[in-house]
């Protein structure tokens, strides 16, 4: 048989076809295996389930070492849908104390979850109580596919200090976006120190790497757990708060709106930071958190609003010590300079009223009697002293800057979220308001007695008391005095000095002492303790005057500085002084003297009537 060489050449076509395909496949394999990384990642995502192990959150103690916030195990009912067999729903509901309708609703909610899969664990009910857990655990064998997963909840030893302690909630989308630490389902601190010390409290999550097959079933641990990372527990906090004092201050505020702040002057440690109305921190734990939170938000008296650091109030006469200090510092007055008071300050047709006391009088008695006229004259003398400052504007800037160094007008920098700055106007503010050159001391005279545009928070007022107590310095107030394994921030250990000479503080302290011994603050006098104080009665557009008190004790070796501020409660002496002095007494003596028990009882039992808020017309 003759060979056909023409046809034999066709072997090259066939072999060429094979080689062409092989080259295409080779290029494809190169792209898949070497050029493109995404398949490696996909394979890892497929096979490795990185299971987070949550660290235990740091505990919180009060200044005396009493445990205030701790962790409590809670139990979630989990199930793997494809493993669930038909079960006795009535029995199941009895164990959990829920209705069958409730159960079917929960099943529906679970299926609506975007990450629902019938192969992976799903959460049916969260935060079971210990009793429910016990009952269910006993008969769990009757419900295949169900199991119980434990997680921790915050628990509170006292129904007090909610504003300071804060609480925890699930991290929301914003948290997750802002901090790569968080994943959906993680907890994060909300409000109080839970929020401001979140980084210390939360610890570091651990991870367990599990091997997962195509149906989502766990096949074991990767590399026998050698790549796992154990979690690091959160750090414990020690509060500067005395939880008993906090509880006492809150009880005194029941039925009123306001705040009590007590500071240890030598350290800036806040002893109590009470706000009213408050709420039981246990309301924001567990299954009912959402509903309770909504209810608290909607209450007209704003219990979630921490008045001690968020309430900006007119300081009223508690502001007068600052005026005395800066007038002395600027040389506008000497300790002996006396101003007249004829039932008030009169300038042209402007009158600022005052009450009956001796006249004329120098600075100490002026503080003692809370004389409005003295501080108005002093303020006018400073602002109108063009020879020294050039203009009222310049003089006012000097005035303002002194106040800023005393801690007014800006946030003090307390270690809690949400602090507001209060308000101290500057000359630009009045230039805008009245027109440049169109204002003088008289147009703004009310700021000299803590009225008008001036606003301060109770913590700023308490800080003034602490500064006077220290005779010229303070440490930024803070609620955490110790962090496990580390130290508190530098700023909470470093004294700050207002630009006022210490000697002038002696004069102011003396005046405040005189106010207690024979002035407006007589109600604050305690037997055996030299209390210094200053009342405040602040006019405001919301009705009755606010009642305020600030003071410290003892006079010579101060241990506590206090501000008590009660909204719309009238004279400073009616609510501010008794509450402030009771807190001092409680802290210093640990008990209330028998002769003052009636004051305590009156404070505990008296409520202030607040008109319901007017409905806004739309």
């Amino acid at each position: 048989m003759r060979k056909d060489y023409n046809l034999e050449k066709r072997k090259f076509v066939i072999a060429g076809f094979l080689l062409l395909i092989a080259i295409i496949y080779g290029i494809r394999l190169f792209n898949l295996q070497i050029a493109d990384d995404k398949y490696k990642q996909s394979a890892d995502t497929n096979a490795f389930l990185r299971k987070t192990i949550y660290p235990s959150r740091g505990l919180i103690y009060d200044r005396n070492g009493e445990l205030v916030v701790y962790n409590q195990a809670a139990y979630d009912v989990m199930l793997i849908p494809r493993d669930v067999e038909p079960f006795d729903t009535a029995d199941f509901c009895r164990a959990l104390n829920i209705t069958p309708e409730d159960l079917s609703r929960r099943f529906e909610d679970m299926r609506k979850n975007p990450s629902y899969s019938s192969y992976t664990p799903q959460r049916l009910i969260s935060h079971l109580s210990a009793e429910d857990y016990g009952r269910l655990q006993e008969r769990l064998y009757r419900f295949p596919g169900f199991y119980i997963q434990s997680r921790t909840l915050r628990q509170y030893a006292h129904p007090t200090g909610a504003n300071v302690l804060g609480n925890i909630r699930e991290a929301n989308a914003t948290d997750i976006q802002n901090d790569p630490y968080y994943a959906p389902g993680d907890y994060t601190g909300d409000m109080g120190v839970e929020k401001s010390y979140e980084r210390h409290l939360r610890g570091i999550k651990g991870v367990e790497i599990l091997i997962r097959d195509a149906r989502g079933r766990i096949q074991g641990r990767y590399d026998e757990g050698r790549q796992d990372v154990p979690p690091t527990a959160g750090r414990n906090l020690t509060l500067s708060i005395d939880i008993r004092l906090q509880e006492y201050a809150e009880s005194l505020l029941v039925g009123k709106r306001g705040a009590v702040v007590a500071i240890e002057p030598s350290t800036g440690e806040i002893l109590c930071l009470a706000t009213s109305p408050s709420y039981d921190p246990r309301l924001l734990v567990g299954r009912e958190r959402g509903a309770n939170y909504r209810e608290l938000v909607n209450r007209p008296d704003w219990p979630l609003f921490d008045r001690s650091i968020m309430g900006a109030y007119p300081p009223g006469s508690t502001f007068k010590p600052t005026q005395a200090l800066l007038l002395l510092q600027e040389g506008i007055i000497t300790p002996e300079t006396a101003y007249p008071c004829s039932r008030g300050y009169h300038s042209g047709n402007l009158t600022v009223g005052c009450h009956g006391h001796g006249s004329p009088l120098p600075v100490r008695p002026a503080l003692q009697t809370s004389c409005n006229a003295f501080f108005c004259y002093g303020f006018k003398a400073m602002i109108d002293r063009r020879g020294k400052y050039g203009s009222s504007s310049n003089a006012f800037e000097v005035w303002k800057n002194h106040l800023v160094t005393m801690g007014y007008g800006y946030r003090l920098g307390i270690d809690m979220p949400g602090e507001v700055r209060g308000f101290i106007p500057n000359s630009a503010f009045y230039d805008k308001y009245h027109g440049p050159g169109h204002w003088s001391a008289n147009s703004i005279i009310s700021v000299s007695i803590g009225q008008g545009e001036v606003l301060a928070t109770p913590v700023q007022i308490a800080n003034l008391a602490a500064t006077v107590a220290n005779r010229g310095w303070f440490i930024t107030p803070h609620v955490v005095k110790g962090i496990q394994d580390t130290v508190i921030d530098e700023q909470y250990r470093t004294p700050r000095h207002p630009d006022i000479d210490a000697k002038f503080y002696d004069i102011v302290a003396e005046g405040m002492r005189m106010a207690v011994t024979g002035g407006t603050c007589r109600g604050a006098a305690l037997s055996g303790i030299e209390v210094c104080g200053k009342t405040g009665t602040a006019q405001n557009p919301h009705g009755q005057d606010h009642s305020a008190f600030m003071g410290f004790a003892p006079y010579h070796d101060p241990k506590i500085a206090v501000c008590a501020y009660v909204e719309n409660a009238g004279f400073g002496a009616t609510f501010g002084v008794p509450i402030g002095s009771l807190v001092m007494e409680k802290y210093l003596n640990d008990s209330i003297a028998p002769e003052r028990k009636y004051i305590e009882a009156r404070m505990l039992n008296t409520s202030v009537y607040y008109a319901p808020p007017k409905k806004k017309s739309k």
Partner: protein
Amino acid sequence: MRLLRRNPSEESIFKNLDWLTIILYLAMVCCGAVSIYAASYDFDQASMFSFAEFSGKQMRWILMALGIGLVLLLIETRIYETYAYLIYAVMILLLLVTPFVAPDIKGSRSWIVLGPMSLQPAEFAKSATALALARLFSGYNFKLNAKIGNYARALLIICLPILLILLQKETGSALVYLALFFVLYREGMSGLVLFAAAFAVTIFVVSIKYSEALVLGTPAGQFWLLVAIAFIILVMSGIYGKNRLEVCRNLLLGYIGCAAVIVILEAWAKVPVPGLPVMLGIIGAACAYLAFEAMRTRLPRLFVPVATAVLSVVFLFSVDMAFDKLQYHQQMRIKVVLGLEQDLRGAGYNVNQSKIAIGSGGLTGKGFLEGTQTKLKYVPEQHTDFIFCTIGEEEGFWGTTLVELMFIALILRIIHIAERQPTAFGRVYAYCVASYLIFHFCVNIGMVIGLCPVIGIPLPFFSYGGSSLWGFTILLFILLRIDASRKRVLSY
């Protein structure tokens, strides 16, 4: 025959065996067994049982396959030639009976259960068909192109098993026989048929893949295919017009004129040109001109481009219809390969997971038994049709390249063996074996790396399964026997 009356001994057969093929065969079968062990190995030590299942069973299949190979080597070549038609007839009968006696396994009735074994007759029909086709071509002075009847007989031999296997609902195994067109091509069938097939595939792919975007109001795929058809007419008119190049030139001038008019209308005059009728008009005019020239110059060859154009256009417009005729899962598989659908939970799942498995192997692979994709059962059918995944994941690019090279070496060797055969019988049979292997290689690896629709056919010598292994062993060892005795049968 008489000239070489030296008593043929077994020794001489083994001396003449093509040992290179045997070494490649043994290497591939061993690699296959190791891969199957890896694919069915479980992280969980408790299920060593499944290892015993697949890997152990495959070892038994391999040993028996070697036995079968040895027996086949001992049979006289003449027996194969003499009984080729008989073997083919028996296999056809077996294929015919299979759907009636086979149990329904995943919708197909192709497995015959014999005690502890189940076998797929379709795998064995490959060698029977190859023998029959070889026998046909070994007829005295048989030439494929001599008369149309020869084509009919060849096509009958090829198509009979295809039809019977389709009845068993084993589309993949049936399509394998289409590879035998390579053999027909080698034996004289016009290259136009292969070209037409390639062009048909192109038309199918392009018109389905690019059916969304519009060009001149026509689906982009259709429009550009019509342009391509016009271009092919032009080229063919040049080839078939022989020395009458002016026909080709006139056609070209006509095209340029039309293109200019279209561009002017569209770009300057802003008159919308309806792409479909215009292109059909141009092709129609070109065909009419060529037909006219064919008659005027008495060159009937010029009808070839005309026929090509007409058939292509008809095919183009029947693609959508044909596609709709496919079953839903087949449509999805095609769309997934063309990137039109993701369908990661359905048709795209296998391919996506197998791409992840292969892609995650990198250059050197994750190491033997370290593959997570395959161990954790992300890839379905990983020990059978998707065995290439395990190799890709655990042995990396080096592993896949080595497997590719082994296949290329084996197939090229078989083509070499084919061409050295003194008889048409040997040559045609060898080409049949090469064609089957080319088809399996291209389609199996193509589907695993996502370049081919998923057609369930195994990777020869690697995939788990006795039928496939035995089928290819029989094909190969008959070839080796024929080749070993080539020197003793110089001529009849």
